[in-house]
């Protein structure tokens, strides 16, 4: 499987094992607030977001991180999101923090 299509939990393992492939940031989502405007996806500098297949309660497709290793945590998605549903965070050296972030994203 190419690195681009690794699922988020793969990113956590990668962070624990390899420093060079470690993502620099990640996103935190509140999918229930998303109204599917697509600003975050269109203006993400490393282009790591895409609409997910699932629906939220409002009937929109919230974004998902399709290339977690490319996220820089620049928070431009957080600045653009008019519904306060997404923001980016920079990850420091802690792999545990990344694992937490990935897990939080899945349960949010």
């Amino acid at each position, binding site marked *: 499987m190419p690195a681009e299509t690794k699922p988020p939990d793969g990113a956590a393992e990668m962070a624990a094992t390899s420093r060079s492939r470690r993502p620099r940031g990640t996103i*935190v989502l509140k999918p*229930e*607030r998303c*109204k*599917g*405007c*697509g*600003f975050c996806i*269109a*203006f993400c500098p490393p282009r790591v977001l895409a609409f997910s297949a699932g629906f939220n309660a*409002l009937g*929109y497709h919230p974004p998902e991180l399709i290339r977690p290793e490319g996220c820089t945590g620049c928070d*431009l998605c*957080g*600045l*653009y*999101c*008019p*519904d*306060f549903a997404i*923001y980016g*965070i920079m990850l420091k050296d802690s792999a545990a*923090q990344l694992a*937490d*972030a990935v*897990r*939080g994203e899945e*349960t*949010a």
Partner: protein
Amino acid sequence: MSTQQSLPPNPVETLLRTDRMPHIWCPGCGIGTTMNCFARALQQARLDLDKVVIVSGIGCTGRVAGYAHLDSFHTTHGRAIPFATGLKLANPELTVVVYSGDGDLIAIGGNHFIHAARRNVDLKVICVNNFIYGMTGGQVGPTTPATALTSTTPYGCPEQPFNLPHLAESAGAVYVARWTAYHVRQITHSMVEMFRKSGFCFLEILSPCPTLYQRRNRLGDGLEAMKYYKEASVTRHGAPTKEVALSFQGPIVVGKFVDVERPTYLELLNQQLARALEAQYTGCIEEHVRG
């Protein structure tokens, strides 16, 4: 959710009344985007949030006062600036932000706008310009570009719109900038500059109105508007405001146009009272007002 507690929170979350989320703004509306910038600007300027007040009028942007977890007041239509002027004069310690739309600030509140700028009252005026009356059903406004279709101009708007930076500068504003909802970092930077400056500061933010303006003019959704802003914007700091008028889907000149110093209304009032009352004057106008 416990796993998220170790993460830094969304900077805008501290500014929001989260019990009122999700908000009523349409998908693709840019007002929420400007609120993100506002929240980050408040953080960067390290303001004491107990001393920041936000005043709005009526309209879609007027809802900001209702969603912001600050001392906020939602005034009657067009009267955000008079209310804010009173707040500032009664309690000069406050940073008073007027956050409203083009219809509220420039049409119904137009008279208040020019006179507050003329007096140089220390207000931070943020005008989210979506070219139309959004909440009332898409009627023509004083910022609607000529030829644009609205619900009250079905053959196209025949009027010339206001050039807001030129109006603000002519009336006497000491800080005038314009950005679009696409320029999020620049908006944040301008807001920080406004917080650090005293006097009448004016920031115009062009924002998509996908439901009324974009749809009726067949301009696509909010994202299409953002892409237009990205492609059509030219940054010209210090450009003469006379040359920055907008046209229907034409080029957009953005940037910081005016940044000058002028004594504020409160300073002038204090000086005058000190001269007139001499020893009787305590140097603090609100004490005299309260008696």
